[in-house]
């Protein structure tokens, strides 16, 4: 029982990390309707950014993630404006290849600039985000706990933004009915740029939050990106709460399957869940009726 509880906690905490990565993806997926295969590389850039800020200015990653949010926002906005926007009316495969191209280019750019070395932020003198919290015999990693909490706060903040501001409402409206949004005077192109920027910006936060846990190297994005896609489809396109719940589910599945089945088969388990969801409930577990068809 104790092991089960620990597994559950581990899974939920891992889910927090998955959530912070998936939130941005679901925003972009749900609003701009583009599958961004470069999402993992955006995460890589954010992680390098946090590393550099720590190295140069000694910023704690949790501080560095704030400027990183804005830098990533700018990067996402540029990508939307100059690469995705011209392809909005193009077919799906064209859009996918564009983002695959960006992904390849960025990954190799990372290699050119930083080399293949593995860098990690020096957390030895940091007070926040390191160490463990024990509850009885159960333990929680403080950094992961922080990630978990911030992902909840981020979802809360985005939720508030989308519900209670004119811009947020316009973003939701554009996602649901592009033409009608146009008639309301919404500058749809601008909305897409903002949405893409927000999605990328979330990764800026993810970069800071993950720094105490994971080192950075050019291919780090590929470790996370497929899982993020699974989570987004599982949770339902564009649904923030769905992405969060999906992330927790996949985290727990990862943890339990790794223990009760086999560590090398846990991906098989959640990829199978993913395929089943696509086939039998393409709107995702929590989708609001729009999905893969």
């Amino acid at each position, binding site marked *: 029982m104790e092991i089960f509880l620990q597994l559950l906690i581990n899974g939920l905490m891992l889910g927090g990390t998955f959530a912070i990565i998936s939130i941005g993806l679901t925003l972009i997926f749900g609003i701009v309707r583009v599958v961004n295969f470069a999402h993992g590389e955006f995460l890589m850039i954010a992680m390098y950014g946090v590393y550099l800020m720590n190295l140069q200015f000694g910023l704690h990653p949790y501080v560095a993630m704030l400027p990183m949010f804005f830098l990533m926002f700018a990067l996402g906005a540029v990508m939307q404006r100059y690469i995705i926007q011209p392809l909005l009316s193009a077919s799906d495969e064209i859009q996918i290849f564009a983002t695959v191209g960006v992904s390849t280019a960025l990954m190799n750019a990372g290699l050119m600039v930083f080399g293949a070395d593995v860098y990690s932020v020096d957390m030895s003198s940091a007070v926040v985000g390191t160490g463990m919290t024990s509850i009885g015999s159960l333990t929680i990693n403080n950094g992961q706990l922080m990630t978990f909490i911030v992902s909840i706060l981020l979802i809360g903040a985005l939720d508030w933004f989308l*519900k209670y501001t*004119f811009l947020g*409402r*316009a973003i*939701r*409206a554009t996602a*649901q*009915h592009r*033409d*009608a*949004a*146009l*008639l*309301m*005077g*919404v*500058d*749809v192109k601008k909305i897409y740029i903002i949405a893409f920027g927000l999605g990328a910006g979330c990764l800026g936060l993810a970069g800071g939050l993950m720094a105490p846990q994971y080192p950075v190297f050019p291919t780090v994005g590929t470790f996370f990106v497929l899982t993020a896609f699974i989570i987004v489809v599982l949770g339902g396109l564009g649904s923030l709460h769905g992405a969060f719940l999906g992330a927790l589910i996949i985290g727990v599945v990862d943890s339990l399957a790794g223990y009760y089945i086999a560590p090398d088969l846990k991906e098989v388990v959640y990829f199978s869940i993913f395929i089943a969801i696509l086939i039998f409930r393409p709107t995702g577990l929590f989708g*609001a*009726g729009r999905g893969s068809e």
Partner: protein
Amino acid sequence: MLKFNNVSAGYGGAEILRNVSLEVKEGEVVTIVGANGAGKTTSLRSLCGLIPLTSGSIEFQGQQINGLQPHEIVDRGITLVPEGRQLFPFITVRDNLLMGAYKKTARKDAEKRLEEVLELFPRVRERLGQYASQLSGGEQQMVAIGRGLMSQPKLLMFDEPSLGLSPLLVSQVFDIIRSIVQSGTTVLIVEQNIGHTLRLADRGYVLENGEVVVDGTGEQLLDDPHVKRAYLGL
């Protein structure tokens, strides 16, 4: 206030509007009638900037507006209540209405405006928290009109406001449009249900195959043989 000068427009090479000229004066109610496929909706969509013109020009308050982005046209004070309502399905009724006040000049008075609109549609008030997709057809039409009013338009356009509604609801919708007209908003209606429309309108244009074949006051058109021919082939 609004002027079409020899406008031609269409989709993908097919010309649906041909050399259409028409005019709406401030404070007027003007209607465009005609059979299905005659180009009524196309004329409204080209006015909103959703379809580029192939020739001609559109002027609003003396300035050329064709070629502007749709949101720029909304900013000038032109709002369309589209055919088939086109509400945002998974957004609450309240937020749907507030979306109507998206343009910068309408935002600060949005809450006040919302109250006014709700006074006009008391039934909508009870539904404020529901998703638009959960409403009945009539309620959706009310929300769509309300949403159009939220932008405080100078020119409000309706595309087939009676579509898919029961006769009783159609009468209600036209009563509402009438009250909007009385409050001083200029209105342009495209409608198939010409009985109601022509009675309401100051003037009307009859479109046939993308061209204006007759125009005149509402009363004149009611008796015009073109109208009956366009609809019933008599």
